[in-house]
């Protein structure tokens, strides 16, 4: 048993902290207020390798592994949760190609995604298919030399800015999760356009749009993996995505704690700092204990991934626990700030809104429980 990070992991965390403190934190509030997607910063993150952290060297990636990825994403989220979801989705978008792409696809797309030359997004959700992606209706008809794609995707993170889309669509007549396939679709492909941009509660400096496909011809060679393997590919990509979102939620929670401590030590009521009151201390203690637990849940899931061990259940546990923790902590942090926390002048107001998405996207808390329970029951079959 070892609770030590390696030198390399510690350095990655330090580099990400340095980057987040200088490039993200100073303008985070303004970007949130004005809904600015920071393409320039995202570009820099790509060049540094932060958007292809789990892609190995030979495909142009950082080859840093899942543990380092979680540490870095936390630091980014601590400074700007919006940019953290961008980072999470960009990294997730490398997974289908990394695990299932052929050499041509890897050379053509993965290399550039890993080096930040291309930005990738992941399009699974549809208006009628959220928690139940097996019910999605986007069609990809086999037309011998190409697939003809029709339908609408929604809630697509940075879909407006992405150069390539990982798209899940129905290729077969089978019902449910069978009959789905994964494609890489390039921006600018005729018949593919960006629909409306969503006006969100939080994460307002991240971009969320609809993607519209109308008789969009996608070449045969852009099918990733086998026809019919789309659901499996999506679920594997989401396993990685979940440790990303858990890390984002932990970054938000750590920010909640630090903001709370700073405010509680400075704010005086009844003649003393409110941090001297037990009621406030208990809230701080609860947040800090949660952070410790979440940290090890995430690191354990990430470590399992790096070791090549199954980590689906652990990733879901980490995501479930940490996203719920982020919401509780944001509630407590705002409570500690009192009326000031309700104002946009204070960072906790943004944290409160940003935390909310974490129990919803990449699998709601209810779906995480379902994944955990099914895996457990399978283990005991």
């Amino acid at each position, binding site marked *: 048993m070892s609770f030590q990070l*390696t*030198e*390399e992991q*510690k*350095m*990655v965390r*330090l*580099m990400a902290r*340095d*980057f987040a*403190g200088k490039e993200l934190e100073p303008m985070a509030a303004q970007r949130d207020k004005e809904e600015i997607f920071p393409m320039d910063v995202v570009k820099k993150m790509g060049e*540094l*390798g932060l958007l292809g*952290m789990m892609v190995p*060297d030979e495909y142009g990636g*950082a*080859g*840093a592994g899942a543990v380092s990825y979680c540490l870095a994403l936390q630091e980014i989220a601590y400074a700007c949760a919006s940019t953290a979801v961008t980072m999470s989705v960009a990294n997730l978008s490398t997974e289908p190609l990394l695990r299932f792409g052929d050499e041509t696809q890897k050379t053509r797309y993965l290399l550039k995604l890993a080096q930040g030359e291309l930005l990738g997004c992941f399009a699974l959700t549809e208006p009628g298919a959220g928690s139940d992606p097996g019910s999605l209706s986007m069609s990809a008809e086999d037309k011998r030399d190409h697939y003809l794609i029709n339908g609408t995707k929604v809630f697509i993170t940075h879909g407006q800015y992405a150069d390539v889309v990982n798209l899940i669509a129905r290729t077969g007549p089978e019902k449910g999760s069978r009959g789905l396939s994964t494609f890489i679709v390039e921006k600018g492909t005729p018949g593919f356009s960006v629909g409306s941009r969503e006006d969100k509660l939080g994460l307002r400096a991240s971009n969320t749009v609809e993607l519209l496909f109308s008789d969009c011809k996608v070449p045969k060679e852009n099918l990733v993996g086998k026809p019919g393997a789309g659901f499996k590919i999506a679920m594997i990509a989401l396993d990685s995505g979940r440790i990303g979102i858990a890390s984002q939620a932990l970054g938000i929670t750590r920010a909640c704690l*630090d903001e709370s*401590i*700073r405010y509680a030590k400075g*704010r005086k009521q009844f003649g003393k700092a409110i941090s001297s009151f037990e009621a406030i201390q208990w809230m701080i203690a609860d947040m800090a204990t949660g952070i410790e637990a979440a940290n090890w849940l995430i690191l354990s899931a990430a470590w399992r991934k790096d070791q090549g061990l199954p980590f689906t259940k652990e990733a879901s546990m980490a995501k479930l626990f940490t996203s719920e923790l982020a919401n509780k902590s944001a509630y407590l942090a705002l409570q500690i700030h009192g009326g*000031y926390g309700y104002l946009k002048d204070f960072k906790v107001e943004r944290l409160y809104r940003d935390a909310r998405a974490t129990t919803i996207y990449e699998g709601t808390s209810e779906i995480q429980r379902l994944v955990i329970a099914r895996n457990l029951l399978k283990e005991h079959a």
Partner: protein
Amino acid sequence: MNIVVCVKQVPDTSDPDTEVHIDGTGRGVDQSKFSFVINDADNYAVEEAILLKEKHGGEVTVVNIGGEAANQVIRMALAKGGDGAVRLDDESFVYSDVVATARLLKSAIKDLGCDLVLTGCMASDDGYGAVGIALAQMLEVPHAAYVKTVEVVDDKKLKVGRELEGGLLEMNEIEMPCLLAIQTGGNEPRYASFKGIREASKKEIKVMDLAATGLSADEVGESGSVAVMTQYSVPEVGDLAEMIEGDPAETSAKLANILKEKGLV
């Protein structure tokens, strides 16, 4: 061109939670609550060294005086492009003043055969701004301080720009080997790359204790120092200083009134 760059680890004062408290000895501050970073000016010196190496070849050696915790800033400099590192670490080095510090650095640098020594122009913690100059004297090489631009004229000579008051740039030619104390703002310090981090995490940091420096105990630490730091004290609040207290709303309103009364806004 072989370059030595001296780096110091200092408390991160950009962190708003940093509180400075004098420790029990009265000669130190409580460091337990600090997070540590590379001294700002040294960060620019590291970048300058790597830029010069990228353009003109050679090796960059990172030199530091500090405990094991300082490996963090050393490794980061290695990850950005440094080739080797030396850390001077011995209990007897504590309380070294400018002269003793420069003597220690010289002991690590003198046999490296470098063409150029870079330091930051000032450390953000003690603010002496003199170690680089003292080191140049001991190495018996010319120096320039507050250097913002460095250009290689030929393999013997550099053209350096020193930043003066009001941003005025004074251009000088200086013969190598020499020492430059680098000012902040002359370049854009890079972030370490993943490849650099991976390589740096495996690189050896050579540690030199007192015996390895070849110096005697009375040449280092307090006994080797010309100036001895005796006591830290917190400034008393003067009659002319008004400390504004209260909530952010109250303090900002009071401050605005004062500025208005004095006709400053």
